[in-house]
């Protein structure tokens, strides 16, 4: 038995490098993109490739990174969550709403102790995620539509809480994690790193993580294998909402204010990070490792474009084009892989 296994392994190696590279396309392409972009900006601007600037990039991608952890779970299941930015926003606003504000802030809020404010904010985002989950699994609304509705609902709650005003204060621990640093490293980078690591560990080493990949790989087969597919889909929607909520709370502390529409750009950024990194939109392939590469591609791109002094309106177009290229690669990689396995 052992000998036949070795023979087969040798056979697989004998297939050569090219087919191997082709099957790994979804992992290699984003990485090459990252190297190319970094090299380009390093040559184009002397201020890009510095340790200071690396710190900047890390800080800039942290909030996106925290939100993208949960979104990776959702996309691995071949679903989508369009409410992430809104939920981040409403959670950030909620934690401020339950914190005592300066007297000049004209919001009829409910000041509570810090721990209670944080707990209520987390409960709020978990609840909104649960509503997403129930709509998707029990009623059968496609996630695209369900979370589109939730995007509006969460924005509506945000609007009602702040009523066009801006709140500034959040509980001390949130302020520290969002805008403080330790030994020169911003806490928000550490939190993002821990959450990404946690996400990776869950996806790679736990039973739940395996289920996520299997449900994404072939939902019908998962059901015929006796998995509770609805429970798994529901769980990833809640995970996504909670990650968004944490990102929202820290984001508010990071920006120094809580207000309406503060997180709008994070929807596209988070989706882009996950997909540019190579996680399959069809589910079942990819992971946190891909998301991290995707985050850096976006981070380097955003940051680098500032360094080369480019028309800020052109920046938006370039980001769009990069995203399109990533989508093309994503779909193409899926096809190559299917062909290889057939």
């Amino acid at each position, binding site marked *: *038995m052992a000998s*036949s*296994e070795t023979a*087969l*392994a*040798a*056979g*697989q190696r*004998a*297939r050569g490098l090219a087919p191997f590279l082709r099957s790994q396309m979804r992992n290699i392409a984003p990485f090459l993109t990252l190297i190319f972009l970094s090299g380009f900006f390093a040559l184009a601007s002397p201020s890009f490739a510095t340790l200071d600037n690396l710190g900047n990039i890390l800080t800039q991608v942290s909030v996106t990174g925290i939100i993208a952890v949960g979104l990776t779970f959702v996309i691995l299941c071949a679903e989508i969550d369009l409410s992430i930015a809104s939920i981040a926003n409403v959670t950030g606003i909620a934690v401020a709403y339950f914190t005592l504000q300066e007297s000049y802030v004209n919001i009829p809020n409910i000041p509570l102790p810090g721990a209670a404010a944080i707990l209520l904010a987390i409960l709020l985002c978990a609840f909104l995620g649960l509503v997403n989950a129930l709509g998707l699994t029990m009623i059968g609304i496609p996630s695209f539509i369900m979370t589109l509705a939730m995007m509006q609902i969460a924005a509506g709650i945000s609007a009602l809480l702040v009523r066009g005003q801006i709140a500034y204060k959040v509980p001390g621990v949130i302020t520290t994690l969002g805008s403080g640093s330790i030994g020169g490293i911003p806490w928000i980078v550490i939190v993002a790193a821990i959450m990404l690591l946690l996400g990776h560990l869950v996806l790679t*080493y*736990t*039973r739940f*993580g*395996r*289920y996520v*990949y*299997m449900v994404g*790989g*072939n939902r*019908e*087969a*998962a*059901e*015929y*294998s*006796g*998995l*509770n*597919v*609805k*429970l798994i889909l529901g769980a990833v929607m809640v995970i996504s909402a909670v990650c968004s909520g944490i990102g929202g709370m820290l984001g508010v502390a990071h920006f120094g204010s809580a207000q309406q529409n503060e997180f709008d750009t994070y929807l596209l950024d988070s989706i882009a990070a996950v997909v540019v990194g190579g996680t399959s939109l069809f589910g*079942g*392939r990819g992971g946190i490792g891909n998301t991290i590469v995707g985050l850096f591609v976006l981070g380097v791109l955003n940051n680098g474009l500032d360094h080369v002094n480019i028309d800020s309106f052109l920046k938006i177009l370039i980001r769009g084009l990069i995203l399109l290229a990533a989508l093309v690669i994503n779909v193409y990689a899926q096809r190559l*892989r*299917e062909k290889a*396995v*057939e």
Partner: protein
Amino acid sequence: MREDRSPILELQGITKSFGGVEALRGVDFALSPGEIHGLVGENGAGKSTLMKIIAGVHTEFSGRFLIDGQETHFRSARDAHSAGIAMVHQELSVAPDLTVAENVFLGNQPTNRLGLVQWRRMAREAGEQLARFGIDVDPMSRLGDLPIGLQQLIEIARVLFSGARIVILDEPTSALSPPEVERLFATLRRLRDEGTAIVFISHFIEDILRVSDTVTVFRNGRKVAETASAATSKGALIEAMIGRGGEALEHSYSDDLMLPRPSDSAVVLKVDQLSLARSLKDISFEARAGEVLGIYGFMGCGQQELSRILFGKLKSDGGTLAVDGKPKTFASTAAARRAGVALVPESRRDMLFHQEPVYKNISISILDRISALLLKPAQERDIAQRQVEQLQIRPPVVGLDLGMLSGGNQQKVALAKWLTYPPKLLVLCEPTRGMDVGAKNDVINIVRDLRTKGLAIIVLSTEPETVLSLADRILVLKRGALVREFKNEPVSKDRLLEAA
């Protein structure tokens, strides 16, 4: 007369490998116009691979490929299609949400000068074509609403009437009832007489001998025999296929077979007055430990729905289920699994993960028994390795992606998923469909072994042979109702067909 026609298609020294495993080794193959060419061989012998090369599905291979004497290399199935080659694949490939007429004309709907689809003309012509084939359906009905057998016939009809010069049929009869098979054969003969070249792949050797002019036998990626159908016999072909005296492996089941006295062991499943819309009417029966209950019926008789209800995939409209005497309503397949019910559906695609390795496919249903929170990959591989050895899955490599395995071996993996922690009730749909004699026999032995271990097993099939080879007691399902029970009495293929 046929011999002196020059071949329309000629393949020389075709070799093709997947991931280091050679699927075809130096195969020569020729096809003449006005010929029905039968192909037989065990699963994984290379028949389907060769046909996929001809149909432009596999484009990387070595060897010469000639059409009308000219060397050709297809880059896609589209190239093959424009060269006049059409194929009906083993797995149904229709658009269930489109109408029958749209399916018949898929890709070349009749349009007017503005490019708009001429619906009335399309419906009329589709109706005419299907009528020539003996199919009487409303061309404007949704295809997915029809029974699977009918869908398959419509797909075959589409390909047959597409005007192709070379038609390849991969296991076309497995989902068809006997009268439908007759109609198919009559059409094939007519097309042959009109000059079409037809390749016919089937595990039903009688069918091959009846309809084809020439038979080619494959074994382990090589062509081992090619003879005129009139000059060979079933026994000779089976021997060539499996390379050993194969007579004993295959019964004809035309003679009476005595069913044993019904078992009086514990009732594992009790079904009472089960009904579902138009599919099932007041079904009541019991399944006992250590017994194989066969449920036979033609395609569309309600078997599929019944199996799905037992596994919690479908909800019934009325009636009750009890497992071990406890009433159950399964909210999900997970609930059914926890109650000790397991299902292997008829379509492997539905229960396997083709892009995942074999061991993950085997362990998925029992992960909660192996690990609470963290995965234990080493243990998963061990368990999978044991199953792979026990069921003789080839190649015996648990790390290989499932999609690299042949159909019969995939079917064994589908079974293996449930065997590490055996369920109380195992429901098998078409457990041997599309399998060669050797693999079929393996599966039969596995099922018998499980019966001795005290499982209650339900085998649902549209093939009388499958039910007869496995069951201790047989129920006949006809248009959603149980019409006959065979127990402790002689039964044969004829008697079953008569009851259905």
